[in-house]
């Protein structure tokens, strides 16, 4: 996907002006956080499960080469193939090659953020292979030619009326007067459209929520069951996953599943949790004959051991988006690339560069809510700040903010100077504002006064007034 992260400010402005988006986002923020809270409260050991989940991933990251090799060996033993791909381009080429070898005309696809990251749909289409998204949300945005706006709820930015509209336009063979008001009707229509596609597909392309080293299995988690049809009906199954999706054992995988669903949607468990191991065996009734895993690096190995190492623990649950006041204000598209919210603001600059995505780590109040809810206890605010430090040290902070900041720092590191310089300015402002109590407009403060008044200073500085012996009393009875 082509990034528009550099236009973050314009993207955000557009998003803020979009009333339909505002309504959709307010539904999201009423729904997911409350459900997560309830799910967490139902499970007394939720907090200690988070610790366990974090420790599993930390251990994996410290021994990544070992577990990846173990995983590959098990996949090969069970009759599958692992393709190591360093870049998005390598992964695209590999997937297209497998599709061609399978003589594929259509590929069904279950939701995969890595699929978005490497823009596999465009690549397949370009080479004459038709990709069909089978997750309801992904299906909708594929029809609309839009990127996902949320890592687990890709069409969260749309209302059901917008979806109905899209279906009417995209399914011209159906009766125009059919009723599409109820979500149920939309679901039924998507389902019947997709049924044929499932049966006709030559290749099934899935992501993988986890890769399990001890068995060579992949874990697929959905609420719609579409991943199960995607991988089991066609002759060839390709799973794409990035390196850090690995966990040592099935036991570890279940620990992570327990925090994943609760953090994501507030479910105790997602509806379909499938472990696929290798191609169909002689005694199996169904399943693919060919099983491929495309293992993607695409910048992950560079993150190992560095400031963003812990980000590799992320299990893409979406909790940090659901709880982020910035995400809830502007939605996912404003971030301008595949990922969004706090995890996106940390990850995107790692994947497409800080020059392109420099706004993202700055567009946060560092309120800390994301870290608070992240099941993997990833210190997201600390990492956002790390990006800012890199920008500052590389001289890429906006020149005006940079000089103002440095001036403020220079003065405040020398309190005597601060007293001489700042106090008179404040007194002047206080004198100016005393009558009205506040300013509606003020030179150089346009950023502040665009949406809010500025309370006027009271007058004098506390430190000097105190040290002059002033002691205002209590209020008069």
């Amino acid at each position, binding site marked *: 996907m082509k990034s528009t992260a550099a236009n973050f400010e314009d993207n955000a402005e557009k998003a803020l002006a979009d009333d339909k988006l505002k309504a959709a986002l307010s539904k999201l923020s009423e729904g997911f956080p409350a459900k997560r809270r309830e799910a967490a409260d139902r499970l007394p050991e939720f907090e200690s499960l988070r610790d366990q989940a974090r420790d599993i991933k930390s251990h994996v990251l410290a021994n990544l080469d070992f577990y990846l090799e173990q995983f590959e060996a098990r996949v090969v033993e069970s009759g599958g193939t692992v393709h190591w791909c360093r870049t998005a381009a390598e992964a695209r080429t590999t997937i297209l090659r497998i599709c061609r070898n399978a003589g594929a005309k259509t590929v069904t696809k279950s939701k995969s953020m890595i699929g978005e990251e490497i823009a596999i749909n465009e690549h397949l289409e370009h080479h004459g292979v038709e990709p069909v998204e089978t997750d309801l949300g992904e299906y909708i945005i594929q029809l609309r030619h839009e990127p996902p706006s949320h890592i687990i709820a890709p069409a969260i930015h749309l209302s059901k009326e917008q979806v109905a509209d899209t279906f009417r336009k995209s399914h011209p063979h159906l009766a125009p007067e059919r009723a599409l008001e109820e979500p149920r009707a939309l679901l039924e229509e998507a389902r019947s459209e997709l049924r044929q596609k499932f049966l006709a597909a030559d290749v099934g392309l899935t992501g993988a929520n986890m890769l399990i080293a001890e068995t060579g299995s992949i874990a697929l988690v959905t609420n719609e069951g579409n991943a199960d049809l995607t991988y089991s009906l066609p002759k060839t199954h390709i799973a794409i996953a990035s390196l850090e999706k690995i966990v040592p054992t099935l036991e570890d995988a279940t620990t992570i599943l327990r925090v994943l669903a609760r953090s994501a949607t507030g479910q105790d468990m997602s509806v379909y949790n499938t472990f696929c191991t290798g191609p169909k065996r002689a005694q199996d009734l169904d399943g693919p004959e060919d099983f491929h895993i495309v293992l993607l690096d695409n910048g992950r190995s560079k993150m190992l051991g560095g400031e963003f190492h812990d980000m590799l623990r992320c299990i893409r649950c979406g909790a940090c988006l659901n709880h982020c006041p910035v995400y809830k204000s502007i939605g996912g598209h404003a971030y301008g690339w595949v990922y969004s919210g706090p995890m996106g603001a940390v990850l995107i600059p790692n994947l497409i560069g800080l020059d392109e995505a420099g706004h993202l780590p700055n*567009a946060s109040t560092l309120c800390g809510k994301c870290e608070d809810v992240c099941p993997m206890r990833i210190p997201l605010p600390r990492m956002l*700040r790390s990006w800012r430090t890199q920008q500052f040290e590389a001289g890429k902070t906006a020149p005006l903010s940079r000089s103002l900041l440095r001036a403020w720092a220079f003065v405040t590191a020398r309190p005597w100077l601060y007293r001489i310089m700042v106090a008179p300015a404040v007194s002047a402002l206080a004198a100016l504002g005393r009558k009205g109590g506040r300013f509606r407009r003020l030179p150089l403060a346009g950023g502040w006064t665009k949406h*809010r*008044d500025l*309370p006027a200073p*009271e007058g004098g500085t506390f430190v000097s007034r105190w040290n002059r012996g002033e002691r*205002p009393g209590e209020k008069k009875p």
Partner: protein
Amino acid sequence: MSETPARQPSIGLFATCLVDLTRPSVGFAAAKLLEDAGCKVSVPGQQSCCGQPAYNSGDAADARAIAQTVIRVFEGFDYVVAPSGSCAGMIRHHYPALFENDAKWLARARALADKTHELTSFLVDVMKVDGLEADYDGVVTYHDSCSGLREMGVRDQPRALLGQVSGVALKEGEEREACCGFGGLFCVKYPDISGRMVDAKVDDILATGADTLLAGDLGCLMNIAGRLQRRGSDVRVRHVAEVLANMTDGPSLGEPGDESKK
């Protein structure tokens, strides 16, 4: 109060630059609360800002220089107390992080961090304040500022203290723990996003029907007061210390003052 540390503890009051420059009342209120709790309060003249704007903007070198000044000035006190969760959080958590690679300063930063507290939590958790003598006639709602809540564990303490003020009725907002959109320089760098966030906060406050908004951080308060007033609301906005110290005669934030005052 039930029980205080044996000796009268010496407090370095870190007023914070916002209080120092824009709302001295909060400093006086904090000092009074600490003195009433049995502390010996000093306000070192060599203080300014905790360095958070620099730190959060990625200017670690300047943040370190400011931190060194604060450490030098305040390390001699038994405790450092700030009427702000955000500035106290900066000293408590981020000063040590700034000196990770400098053993000598790290030790000094840690020593200061360990004795630095946000005002209301210090009064409750350390000084065990109980039985404040204050009254405030109003329905108040409380905004939990992000750093206070998530870095300093301030949630119950200000409410416990407000419970001791006669006449106060507390009506909590659903989204009391949501960020108000201030975020230091964030609010001027991304004014429209910040504007949407503070609007949500204001909606939540208005939904409580309270006539007064209180919080423990002046940054949030200025932001919220500014938006309330832009929207024509007459909800009064004060730092919680003003109510606790019974010092609510002066104008609330953004309210016109009387000419005779300094």
